[in-house]
C-alpha cells in the first residue's frame, strides 16, 4: 500500500461509529438467550461432585419419571449411540460429551436432562444420582507433571483438526500432553559461567473469562438429516467441522449460525455445549436449547494457571542467558492448551536479544476445570516472569529499566531465539510511547529516594510483551456489490464486541469507493458465510481484512472492466470514490456505480460479486530445538507503564495511573483501537489485583460473582492513557494488524515492577491481594530492611 494514499482514504483510518451501535443502544439487539426456538426442550446438565473418580453408575430412573421430561442421557447412552464419536477436542479428542468410565474434574457433566421447561428439567436433574469410587487427584501442575502423579487421561489421540496440531503427542503414562523445546546457544553452560544468576518461580492461578453472557446453544435435526446449530462460539467453522466428525455428517449437512456474542475473550471457542445439545437433539428428535448459569460457566472453562520458573544469567555487565520452564495447567481436558504451550512457549524468553536461550514449555493435565485461551493466549503467564527479571537484572547492573530494555529489545531485522527473522515489530516504538507518556527521564535512573506520603508507598514500573499472530490460519470472504451502490460482506468473523464487523465494513467501503453506511456485514451462518479458522488471537483485522480486500478488489475489477469501455480508458486508469467511478487523470470524467451496472446488465437490482482467500504460513519447527526459518506472520508488541500506590498498613494496591501502548500496524479505526487497548488493560488489572479461581478439596470454592468479583468502576486506575502505535505490517490491509490482546501482554509485570519500586520487595504471585502484599512487606521488614529500600 502506497503510504501517499493514506491521506486519500475516505473510510479507513477514520473514527466511524460502530455498525451495530444503534441497535445495541436501543436494547433491540438480540443475543442467543433472547431468541425464540419454537418447541425447544430445555437441557440441564448434571455434574460430577468429585475431582477424580471412577463413575460406577448413574441412576436416572427417578429423573426420567418426572413430568415434562423428554430424555435423560448418560455416558453409557452416549457409548450406545451408533455413529456418534463419544469425545471431542481441537488438539486431542479427549473430552467426553458426557463422562463415562471416570470423571476428571468436579463439575464435569455426567448426565443431561431435557424437559419441556427449564423448571421441569432442573427438578428432574436434581433426582439424578451417581455412584463413584474416588481416585487420588492432582491439581498442582508441577506435581501433575512428575512421575507417580495420578494420571488424568490415560490415552489421548491427536484430533487432527488443525494442520499445526496434527503431529501432537504427549508423554505416555504422564499428565504432560505437550512438551515444547526451544534451544539457542548453550543456556546451561552460560548460566554455569555467569557471575550472577537470578532464579525465580512465578505463579498465576486459573481465572475466569467471565464474559457477561453465559454460553448457550440451540440445535435440532431437520427431517432431511441436516443439523442446525445456533450457538455462542468464536469458531463457527471449527464447530461445524467438529460436529460433522462427531455425528458422522457431511460438512454441508451441518449449519452453524452465530449471533453476536455478549463478550467472549477466548471463553467461547472450539466446542463447549454444542456436542451435548446436538446429542440430545439426536436422541429426542426435538429442538433442544441450553443456557448455562454463571456457576456453570466457571465449571466449563478457565484460563490456564501457570507456574513459570525462570533463570537469568549476567556476566561482564551483559545478560548472557535466559532459561524458562513453564507448566501450563490445562485442567482435565487439553482444549487448545498444547498450542499455547508451543506457540506461546516460544515467546517465553521475552522479546530480547539474548545469545543463549533454553525453554521447556509443558502443557499438563490436572483434575480442574478445563482451561483455554483468555485474551493473550498464555503470554501474561510468561511476561510476569521475564519482565520482572528484566527489572531484577537492571537493578543488579545499576541500569535504568527502560534503558536496559531499549538495549536488548528486538527490532526489525533481528533474529528471534527460534532463528526466525523478526518482521514488522513495533516494540521499541511502543516502549518509547509509554516512557514518553510517563515522563520517564531519557537514559535517567529511577530516583533512589522513594516518594512517601504517610502510609502510602508509591512506585512505578514498565514492562513489554509480545505475541505471535496465530499462523497458519485461513480466512475466506465474499463481497457483493449491488447496483444501487450498497454492498454486503459475507464472512464468518464473529462479532463479540471487538468491533470486527465495523472494521471489515470500513475496509470494504474503502476498496469499493462507498460511504461507510452503504456496507453491511453478515454474521456467521455457515450456509451463507465461507470458512474462517476462528475469531480469536487478534487475527481478524489482518486475515479477514486481507480476505475482504481481495474480494472487494475482484468486484472493483469487474466494475472497472465495464466502466473502462464507457469512459474509454484502460481499467487501471480508473478509481472509485463516493459511489462514482472516475478517470484518475480527469476526475470529471466519471459515472455512478448504478450507471456502470445498467451498462453491464441492462437492469437495476443486479449484483457483482468477488471472493477472497487469505492464509498465513509458518515453517515447521525442529522438535528438539524449536528452530524454524518462519515462526509467525507478524508480531503484536505492546508496552505498559503504571504508577501504583500501596497502603503499607492494609496492603491495598491502587493503580493511580496506567499508560498502555500497542502497535496496531495501522489504525483502521483509531477510536476502536484505543477502546481495545484500554479494555484489555482493564481486564488484566482485575487478573493482577484480585481475580483467582480458588480450589479446596479438589473443588472450586468461589465460582459465583459474589465470591469472584470483576474489576468495576472503583477498581479502575485513577487515570488511563492509551497510545496507538503505528508501525505498519507490510502484508496487512493498509498496514494493519490486530489489537484485541496487546493490552493484556505486559500489565501484570508492570504492576509487579512498580510494587518493587514502591516497597523494595519482589512479589512473585498474582493476584497481588492485600494479604500477599502485606506478607511481602512483613518479610522485607523481618529481613531488617526498611520499606522502599532495595535489596
Amino acid at each position, binding site marked *: 500500500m502506497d503510504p501517499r494514499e493514506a491521506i486519500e482514504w475516505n473510510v479507513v483510518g477514520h473514527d466511524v461509529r460502530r455498525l451495530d451501535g444503534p441497535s445495541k443502544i*436501543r436494547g433491540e439487539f438480540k443475543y442467543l438467550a433472547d431468541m425464540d426456538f419454537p418447541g425447544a426442550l430445555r437441557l440441564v446438565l448434571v455434574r460430577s461432585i468429585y475431582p477424580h473418580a471412577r463413575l460406577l453408575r448413574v441412576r436416572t430412573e427417578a429423573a426420567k419419571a418426572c413430568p415434562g421430561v423428554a430424555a435423560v442421557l448418560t455416558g453409557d447412552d452416549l457409548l450406545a449411540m451408533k455413529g456418534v464419536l463419544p469425545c471431542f477436542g481441537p488438539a486431542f479428542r479427549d473430552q467426553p460429551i458426557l463422562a463415562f468410565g471416570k470423571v476428571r474434574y468436579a463439575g464435569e457433566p455426567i448426565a443431561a436432562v431435557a424437559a419441556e421447561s427449564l423448571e421441569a428439567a432442573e427438578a428432574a436433574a436434581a433426582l439424578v444420582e451417581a455412584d463413584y469410587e474416588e481416585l487420588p487427584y492432582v491439581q498442582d501442575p508441577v506435581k501433575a507433571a512428575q512421575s507417580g502423579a495420578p494420571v488424568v487421561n490415560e490415552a489421548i489421540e491427536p484430533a487432527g483438526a488443525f494442520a499445526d496440531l496434527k503431529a501432537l503427542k504427549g508423554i505416555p503414562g504422564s499428565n504432560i500432553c505437550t512438551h515444547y523445546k526451544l534451544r539457542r546457544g548453550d543456556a546451561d553452560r552460560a548460566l554455569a559461567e555467569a557471575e550472577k544468576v537470578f532464579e525465580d518461580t512465578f505463579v498465576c492461578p486459573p481465572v475466569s473469562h467471565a464474559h457477561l453472557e453465559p454460553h448457550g446453544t440451540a440445535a435440532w435435526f431437520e427431517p432431511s438429516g441436516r443439523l442446525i446449530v445456533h450457538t455462542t462460539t468464536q469458531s463457527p467453522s471449527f464447530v461445524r467441522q467438529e460436529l460433522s466428525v462427531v455425528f458422522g455428517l457431511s460438512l454441508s449437512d451441518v449449519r452453524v449460525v452465530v449471533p453476536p456474542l455478549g463478550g467472549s475473550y477466548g471463553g467461547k471457542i472450539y466446542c463447549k455445549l454444542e456436542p451435548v445439545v446436538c446429542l440430545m437433539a439426536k436422541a429426542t428428535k426435538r429442538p433442544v436449547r441450553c443456557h448455562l448459569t*454463571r456457576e456453570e460457566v466457571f465449571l466449563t472453562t478457565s484460563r490456564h494457571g501457570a507456574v513459570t520458573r525462570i533463570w537469568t544469567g549476567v556476566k561482564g555487565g551483559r545478560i548472557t542467558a535466559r532459561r524458562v520452564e513453564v507448566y501450563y495447567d490445562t485442567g482435565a481436558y487439553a482444549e487448545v492448551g498444547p498450542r499455547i504451550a508451543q506457540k506461546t512457549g516460544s515467546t517465553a524468553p521475552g522479546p530480547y536479544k539474548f545469545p543463549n536461550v533454553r525453554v521447556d514449555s509443558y502443557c499438563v493435565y490436572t483434575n480442574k476445570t478445563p482451561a483455554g485461551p483468555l485474551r493473550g493466549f498464555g503470554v501474561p503467564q510468561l511476561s510476569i516472569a521475564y519482565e520482572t527479571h528484566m527489572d531484577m537484572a537492571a537493578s543488579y547492573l545499576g541500569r535504568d529499566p527502560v534503558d536496559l530494555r531499549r538495549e536488548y529489545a528486538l527490532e526489525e531485522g533481528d533474529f528471534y531465539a527460534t532463528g526466525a527473522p523478526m518482521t514488522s515489530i513495533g516494540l521499541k516504538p511502543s516502549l518509547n510511547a509509554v516512557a514518553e507518556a510517563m515522563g520517564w527521564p531519557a537514559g535517567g535512573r529511577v530516583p533512589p529516594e522513594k516518594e512517601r506520603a504517610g502510609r502510602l508507598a508509591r512506585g512505578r514500573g514498565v514492562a513489554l510483551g509480545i505475541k505471535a499472530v496465530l499462523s497458519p490460519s485461513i480466512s475466506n470472504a465474499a463481497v457483493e456489490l449491488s447496483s444501487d451502490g450498497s454492498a454486503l460482506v459475507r464472512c464468518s468473523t464473529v462479532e463479540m464486541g471487538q468491533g470486527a464487523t465495523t472494521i471489515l465494513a470500513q475496509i470494504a467501503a474503502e476498496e469499493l469507493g462507498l460511504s461507510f453506511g452503504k456496507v453491511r456485514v453478515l454474521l456467521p451462518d455457515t450456509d451463507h458465510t465461507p470458512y474462517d479458522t476462528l475469531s480469536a488471537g487478534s487475527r481478524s483485522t489482518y486475515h479477514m481484512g486481507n480476505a475482504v480486500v481481495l474480494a472487494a478488489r475482484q468486484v472493483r475489477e469487474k466494475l472497472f472492466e465495464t466502466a473502462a469501455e464507457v469512459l474509454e480508458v484502460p481499467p487501471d486508469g480508473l478509481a472509485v470514490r463516493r459511489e462514482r467511478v472516475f478517470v484518475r487523470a480527469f476526475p470529471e470524467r466519471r459515472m455512478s456505480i448504478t450507471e456502470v451496472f445498467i451498462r453491464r446488465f441492462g437492469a437495476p437490482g443486479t449484483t457483482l460479486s468477488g471472493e477472497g482467500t487469505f492464509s498465513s504460513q509458518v515453517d515447521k519447527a525442529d522438535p528438539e530445538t524449536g528452530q524454524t526459518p518462519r515462526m509467525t506472520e507478524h508480531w503484536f508488541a505492546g508496552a505498559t507503564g503504571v504508577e501504583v500506590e500501596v497502603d503499607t498498613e492494609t496492603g491495598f494496591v491502587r493503580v493511580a495511573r496506567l499508560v498502555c501502548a500497542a502497535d496496531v500496524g495501522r489504525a483502521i479505526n483509531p477510536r476502536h483501537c484505543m477502546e481495545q487497548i484500554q479494555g484489555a488493560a482493564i481486564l488484566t488489572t482485575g487478573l493482577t489485583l484480585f481475580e483467582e479461581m480458588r480450589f479446596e478439596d479438589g473443588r472450586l470454592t468461589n465460582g*459465583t460473582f459474589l465470591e469472584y468479583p470483576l474489576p468495576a468502576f472503583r477498581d479502575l486506575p485513577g487515570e*488511563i492513557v492509551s497510545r496507538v502505535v503505528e508501525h505498519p505490517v507490510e502484508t496487512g490491509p493498509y498496514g494493519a494488524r490486530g489489537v484485541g490482546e496487546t493490552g493484556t501482554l505486559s500489565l501484570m509485570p508492570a504492576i509487579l515492577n512498580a510494587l518493587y519500586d514502591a516497597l523494595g520487595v519482589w512479589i512473585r504471585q498474582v493476584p497481588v491481594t492485600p494479604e500477599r502484599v502485606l506478607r511481602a512487606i512483613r518479610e522485607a521488614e523481618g529481613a531488617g530492611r526498611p520499606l522502599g529500600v532495595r535489596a
Partner: protein
Amino acid sequence: MSRPPCRTLRLVVNGQERQAEVRDNTLLLDLLREGFGLWGAREGCGVGACGSCTVLVDGHPISSCLKLAATLPDGCVITTVEGLAAGEKLDLVQEAFLEAGAFQCAFCTPGMLLAVKALLAANPRPTEEEARAYLNGNYCRCGAHPEILQAVRALAERGA
C-alpha cells in the same frame, strides 16, 4: 415444581399498563423477558452482582434477577431499556453513550444505561468519584468504563 399463580400484578411498564398472573417464585427478570417480551434486561450472574439485569422500579435501579415479582406493589412504574427512547428519538443517555462509544459487546449496556439514568436523576452533576461509586455495581467485562464515564461527564456538563 410448577406452582399456581399467587396474585395478579398490575404494573406500569415503559408507560403502558400491564397485568400479569405471577407465582410466588416468579422473578421480575423472568416476568419482563418471558412474560412481556422485553429482552433488554439480561441475566449475567443470577446473584445481583453484575448489574446486567438492572431495571428501574419507581425510578430506582434494582437487580431484577433478585426481585420477586409478587413483592412489587400494584401500580409501580418499571422502566427497561426498551422504554428509554421515545420512538425514533433516543434518550439523552443513549445519545451520550453512542457519542462516547460507551459499549463493546453491549451485554451490560441496558443495565448500564438505566443505572446512569438513575444516577443523573439523583445527582445531575456527579463528580467522577460519585459516578464511579454509583455505577460500581454494574460490570462491563469489555472494559468500556472510560467511555461510559466520558458519557456521564458529557451528560453532567449539560446538567441532563
